[in-house]
């Protein structure tokens, strides 16, 4: 308890608090060398220095005072903060569809933490409803917090639990599933769930936010409303990602879980369908389908769950001068699968050849993808491509590197037989390999070009 009393304070700061008999949440009058201050002592971020004490002044501002410059501190009272979002019981309407919301952590479900000064995933899905009451217009919502992790900490354990929970929810008769997830690796999770959970009769919608929900400009509420709408009312019974379409607060896009990628470190519209077009646009007004080849919602409960996963798989992002010992190290460390993100149509340099050959001879499965992200691997065009295939490297068509990685983990979890693994890898489950790339599947407009400027001037995006 005494540690909590001086939350985050160390060294000089802690000594000063103790010396003057005050603690975190004390309302104090401070006499310091630079003058007097009145306010409430706040917890200190653990990563900040130990020399200052943080005070919340009457005007709402926080300031730091040097512990050494403090002459006296007198406690006038105490005011502890309570992070409470008005929590209401979610209304039940038998006419509305039932949606299950799983929380895994990440920005969609986050709030501030004084101590670290950072946004932490600590928002229970129940509180989420308290801040987004619009959800009650769409469905009957039940929530379950699976984990509270940043998305970079998601791994096989979490994938397997999530897939299991999805399977259970479907068997329980839910009309749609929403998964709150950190955005950084949402496309990884979307890919593996696409493989682990097949032929779902209901939508499985992954959602996150790029601006935390403690900010007025947050995309969290819009994304949440859109994703719940897609899960409750939508006809797309696939694993999809639902995030902002343009940076403007207008509509969300539904992306197929096997073709989506986070493409900007901070933009709201960071998720893009790569090498294809998105599935649908969604807003409060409704869902607009952009393509016909979707898996439709069904009334049965015949979902297939396959939780296979092999961890000893890696992605090698090729660069000129990559040394063969990197491939050797993977082999020597017992890796069973390697996905190469090669240059251009799928190339690596010659010095790597012996190492790749050794990998194959050691039973390692090696697949080629392209680091250009858009476009197909085509290893016949150049001599080098053919040589690399000779070494046992299998071209993975237009599978995105991260998707190929997840699929290889999943395939190797099921078999170690070269042919069987290849069959699994190259048989598309849901769009990870496509037969054709549409002409409008590759759109990266360049600014300043007159027609692009015309577009930007007239269309809010």
């Amino acid at each position, binding site marked *: 308890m005494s540690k909590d009393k001086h939350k985050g304070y160390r060294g000089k700061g802690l000594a000063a608090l103790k010396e003057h008999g005050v603690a975190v949440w004390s309302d104090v009058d401070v006499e*310091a060398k*630079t*003058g*007097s*201050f009145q306010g409430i002592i706040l917890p200190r*971020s653990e*990563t*900040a*220095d130990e*020399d*200052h004490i*943080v005070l*919340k*002044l*009457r*005007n*709402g*501002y*926080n*300031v*730091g*005072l*040097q512990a050494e*410059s403090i002459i006296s501190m007198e406690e006038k009272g105490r*005011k502890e*903060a*309570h*992070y*409470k*979002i008005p929590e209401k019981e979610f209304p039940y309407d038998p006419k509305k569809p039932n949606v299950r919301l799983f929380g895994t952590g990440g920005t969609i479900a986050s*709030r*501030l933490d*004084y101590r670290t*000064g950072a*946004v932490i995933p600590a928002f229970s899905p129940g509180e989420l409803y308290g*801040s987004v009451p619009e959800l009650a217009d769409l469905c009957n919502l039940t929530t379950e917090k699976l984990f509270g992790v940043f998305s970079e900490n998601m791994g096989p354990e979490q994938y397997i639990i999530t897939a299991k929970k999805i399977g259970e929810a479907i068997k329980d008769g839910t009309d749609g599933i929403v998964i709150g997830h950190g955005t950084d690796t949402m496309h990884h999770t979307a890919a593996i769930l696409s493989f682990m959970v097949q032929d779902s009769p209901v939508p499985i919608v992954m959602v996150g936010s790029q*601006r*935390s*929900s*403690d*900010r*007025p*400009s*947050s995309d969290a*509420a*819009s994304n949440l409303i859109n994703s719940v709408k897609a899960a409750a009312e939508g006809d797309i019974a696939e694993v999809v990602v639902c995030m902002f379409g343009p*940076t*403007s*607060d207008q509509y969300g896009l539904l992306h197929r879980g096997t073709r989506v990628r986070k493409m*900007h470190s*901070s*933009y*709201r519209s960071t998720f893009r369908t790569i090498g294809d077009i998105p599935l649908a646009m969604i807003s409060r007004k409704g869902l607009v389908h952009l393509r016909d080849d979707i898996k439709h919602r069904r009334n049965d409960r015949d979902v297939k769950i396959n939780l296979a996963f092999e961890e000893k798989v890696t992605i090698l992002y090729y660069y000129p001068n990559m040394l063969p010992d990197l491939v050797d190290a993977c082999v020597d460390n017992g890796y069973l699968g390697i996905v190469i993100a090669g240059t251009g149509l799928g190339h690596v340099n010659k010095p790597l050849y012996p190492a790749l050959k050794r990998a194959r001879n050691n039973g390692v499965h090696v697949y080629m993808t392209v680091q250009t992200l858009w476009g197909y691997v085509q290893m016949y065009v150049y001599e080098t491509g053919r040589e690399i295939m000779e070494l046992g490297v299998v071209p993975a068509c237009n599978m995105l590197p991260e998707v190929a990685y997840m699929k290889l983990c999943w395939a190797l979890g099921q078999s170690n037989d070269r042919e069987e693994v290849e069959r699994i890898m190259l048989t598309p489950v849901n769009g990870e390999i496509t037969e054709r790339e549409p002409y409008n599947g590759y759109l990266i407009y360049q*600014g*300043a070009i007159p027609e692009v*400027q015309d577009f*930007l*001037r007239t269309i*809010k*995006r």
Partner: protein
Amino acid sequence: MGYEFKPFDEMTPEDYAAIGLKAGLEIHQQLMTEKKLFCRCPAGHYSDSYDAEILRHMRPTLSELGEYDGTALMEFKTKKEIVYRIHSDTVCTYEMDDTPPFMMNEAALDIAVEVALLLNLNLVNELHISRKQYLDGSIPTGFQRTTILGVDGWIPYKNRKIGIAQLGLEEDACREVSDIGHQRVFLTDRLGMPLIETVTKPDMRTPQEAAEVGEILRRLVRATGKMRVGHGAAREDVNVSIDGGTRVEIKGVPSLSRVPLLIYNEAMRQWNLLRIRKLLEQREITPSTFSSSNADVTRVLLGTQYVPIQQSMERGEEIHCVRLDGYAGILNEKTQTDTTFAKEISDRVRVVACLTTLPNIVHSDAASETLSAKFWKRIRQRMNARPNDALVLVWGNREDVECGCNEIAIRAREATEGIPSETRQALNDGTNGFERILPGPDRMYPDTDLPPQALSSKRVDEARSRLPEPPWLREARYEKYDLPDDVLDALTSSPRVLLFDSLVDKLGVNPTLAGVFLSQHVKALRRKGLMVEALSDDEIYCVFEAHKDGRLSREGIPEVVRRLMRRNRGRQENGEGVTNDPRKNVQSALDELGLRPLSDDELRRMVEKAVEEGELPDTLVTHDKKHRYLMGVLMVEARGRAEGRVVSNMLTEKLNASDKLAAAEGKSTTRNPKNGKAG
């Protein structure tokens, strides 16, 4: 309350003391930095054109201490679509809230530290960036990044101290383009520029005191020479309260000269609102007994001739009526000069319900100007209204009208409590209108994107060494120069004030000459669009040096300065570096202009030549006219090389001499000497 409110011109300090006026100021001043505060976009580039538009909405969030802020909830009720116009030269993805902030602009911080020292503040030791919520959309993040450097300072004023509550360093907001219905449009060029906010304590007792203190503060911060000047670079907010009243903030005061009338009108409004509360108390209407009801009266009004409602019906909208029980006559009670309590209600409906086309309400206290008596009678029946009830009509689409009815009742009820805490907007006629509920400290929460930053004593000491002399000390020092008042005022807050000292003390330039040049001439040049800022102090110093050396006449000074500025600009445009040697620059400008002063002999020869050989039009009969004409001829050549006064004296002397000569020769003085000779 036995006091009668007098007209503005008749109010005395004693009158203001009687109502217990307290006024404070918040002064926002942009800093002269190259870049913005939290990103690397250029600061101070304005343009109304734009390359793209982005649309956003704002939602209220939980504040750090766990409560929703009142303003935030109100803004959310309004459900505005916010459109940002962005120009690629002035805005990056940071301002659009698509990229996290970069570290704080150090140059801006250094300036703010200087100001904090000038204001005698208790400095903090570590800066924490806070987020101040603004849900009106004026900042795309929904909050302003702001930090305070110190609290509890003071400045001297009339033998007393005016308290300074705090000094903040923050990012500027967008410029509003329009706000119609549910859409508000902003330009984003100004967004993110560094700004200091100086907040005084409510220590001013009359409106005039507030204006004077504002002026002192303005000049104090400008003395650093690091403030932006020009339209919109400095903006004032005024806080007003009277005895029994509430602190009300008036935003967007365009200039300090407007401050006194605004404060007077707000004091009057508060005084009248307290009077209205008393009227209501006499009718036994209190917060707990207040009652109202509302209903859809669209059908009752079918066939009305009142145009706004007629048009509303044509658009298929609804008309609702709010019955305020026992409020008859209250809406016609005066609040500010020429406005009544009805405006308080109309303002709320405009802002909160987004019914922005005026009139947006009509009421039974001004019945005759709107609907016919027949219709009022029908509405009274429909609403079951007694004669002492007031009725307010509002129209629009159902959602907005329901919101409007709600706000009408809320505002009417607030009259029983007194004066609501509001942020109000300064209007051109000196009155003010509702803008939003006054935000409380709840809207502040820490910015988690940036770490705290220590304000080192080294940094503070360095800032202290750069501090300008406060204007009041400087003024006292300049008293001996007997400068004109306007020159003195401009000079003590001019960034060139140190240059003035060296011109006068080191170079021995006449103080009035230097003062007039640095205040009035510089201003005139700027008005002509010349970048006086591009001219270094050293160059100006060398111009005056040339004058003292006799290489340049007093008249030639502005011309040389103009030439130097044009050359500097030309060089910059051609990408050439400006010469580092100011003396060389000035001399070459002098050479180009041929501005060597004329010696007395040279001047005399010029005058003689003009009088004796010049062609004078025949119409010039009088001495005066001849003099004026010849001055014009002479000054073409002598401008900048001789003082006009000297030329004029010489010319008079010469004309007198030639007149005498002509008279002696018995020739007509009405003829031109040359012709005369020929004749």
